[in-house]
């Protein structure tokens, strides 16, 4: 199996399906949040504090059985791609007030090492085995939403959380993966959703698309964002219940501006 399943002594929380032609295996694992010791170990390993809900044992994997190639989504590798410096670091809406209030306070002797505490990641999954990602276009190698929109039976479905943080009640940061397997194709979606109240709304999606009869994997990474107030204004104009809508990435997604959109493909031998 995939890279991160090996330590587990049992198959606890594991679900799996193999496509009818025997070429693709889709596996998920869902276990409770990590305990204190593994959290400390993970924090030291990757060098940043860990989100308050950390599903460090969870994963979602697609494996090409003939060659052993795989793509897997897990919290550790996603967090390892969070900025560990001041680069791109956001500040909460009340940060200015704080600075004024606390200036020159001698009790506060330390500032925590800066990192991107919004846990924004550009993670596109962890690949293993023979095969190179090649950049392509969405026109040449599309994710067939027309075929995915057909009401084909879903043979396997799972939703796997990787991490979540309420940003000390300044919003939400959530990374989760969904997968659905139909008779002829499958789609996996890893979504990072960030709502930083008064500041920004951000969605970073990685879609992985496979037609079971082929040897090709298509991966599309789409990053979108917009200023919080702009999103709020648009929701208000549409007559949505604003606070409720802001909690739902699906409602907010069409209101954001696309900042990155990359399609890649890997041909498996």
């Amino acid at each position, binding site marked *: 199996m995939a890279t991160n399943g090996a330590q587990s002594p049992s198959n606890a929380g594991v679900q799996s399906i193999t496509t009818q032609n025997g070429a693709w295996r889709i596996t998920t694992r869902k276990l409770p949040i990590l305990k204190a010791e593994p959290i400390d170990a993970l924090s030291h390993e990757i060098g940043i504090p860990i989100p308050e*809900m950390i599903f460090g044992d969870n994963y979602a994997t697609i494996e090409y059985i003939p060659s052993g190639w795989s793509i897997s989504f897990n919290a550790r590798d996603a967090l390892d791609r969070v900025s560990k410096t001041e680069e791109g670091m956001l500040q909460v809406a009340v940060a200015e007030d704080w600075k004024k209030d606390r200036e020159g306070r001698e*009790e506060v002797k330390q*500032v925590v090492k800066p990192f991107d505490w919004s846990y924004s990641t550009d993670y596109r999954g962890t690949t293993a085995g023979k095969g190179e990602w090649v950049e392509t276009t969405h026109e040449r190698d599309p994710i067939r939403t027309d075929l995915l929109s057909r009401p084909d039976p879903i043979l396997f479905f799972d939703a796997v959380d990787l991490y979540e943080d309420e940003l*000390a009640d300044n919003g939400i940061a959530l990374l989760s993966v969904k997968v659905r397997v139909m008779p002829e194709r499958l789609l996996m979606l890893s979504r990072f959703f960030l709502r930083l109240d008064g500041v920004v709304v951000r969605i970073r999606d990685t879609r992985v698309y496979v037609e079971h009869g082929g040897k090709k994997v298509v991966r599309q990474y789409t990053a979108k964002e917009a200023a919080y107030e702009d999103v709020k204004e648009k929701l208000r104009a549409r007559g949505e219940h604003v606070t409720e809508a*802001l909690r739902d990435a699906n409602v907010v997604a069409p209101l954001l501006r696309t900042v990155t959109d990359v399609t890649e493909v890997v041909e498996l031998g």
Partner: protein
Amino acid sequence: MPGLPASVDLDECIARLYRKELLADSVIEAICAKTKELLMRESNVVHIQAPVTVVGDIHGQFFDMIEIFKIGGYCPDTNYLFLGDYVDRGLFSIETISLLVCLKLRYPSRVHLIRGNHESRGVTQSYGFYTECSRKYGNPAVWHYFTDMFDYLSLSCVIDDQIFCVHGGLSPSIHSIDQIKIIDRFREIPHEGPMADLVWSDPDSDRDEFSLSPRGAGYTFGAQVVKKFLEVNSMTHILRAHQLCNEGYMVMFDDRLSTVWSAPNYCYRCGNLASVLEVGPGGERKWNVFDAAPENEAHRLEQQQQQQHAGNDPVRDYFL
């Protein structure tokens, strides 16, 4: 102090709430008004005596709160101190806070409630309580009754002059308990200052002193801060909630501080344990660890069936 309107029978309210029934909004209004009067007379630092069972975050997980009474004893046979975060996130914030408030009114010297960071207008608008009130009552009036009452909740408790209890933690502006007593607490939780720190801050085992969060707001406090605070105030332990722990509790800083977490399987998906801390007459501390109540799963299946009946299948989602 004038009593409740004759139409409101507290024992009957409590019995109904144990059955997870909602009270009428006029009853909620009367109960919140009465609770305000009661809380107004409490100090910012309430002194209580052991034995007492201390409860951490509940977050609207009603069935799990009932589990606490089942394993720890019902009121008034067991004394309770609740450390805040009664609402938001879970499915039954109204039922949870309604029952706690009624118990407080019925047994004021045996039930103590202090304020968590979620007992606030701002936070409850983003994390579920406001939406739940609007949905279950058809309008947000009860949300106003509850959140107005939250402004009166005390900020901290001291058990037998030894154990300092607070929702979040310490503040760089507070060295002695007396500095808590002079805070003007009858207000929405501010964004900064000592009142915010008490409900927000977290301990950090990697650092000795106070540290400013990279977010630009919020503090963490270290081992030396805790040691000094306990020395200055002649106390032995700090007990707080606010942070999720998979094991249900966490003890830090050479047994000088512990975190109690009382929402098992938080958000119905974290798979974590929960606990309550039983403080005995001699100051001894016993963790009572528990798992999610079976009623949660029964309720989830019921909801799922209703949704499937309505043509929505939450289990199979044609996402794109």
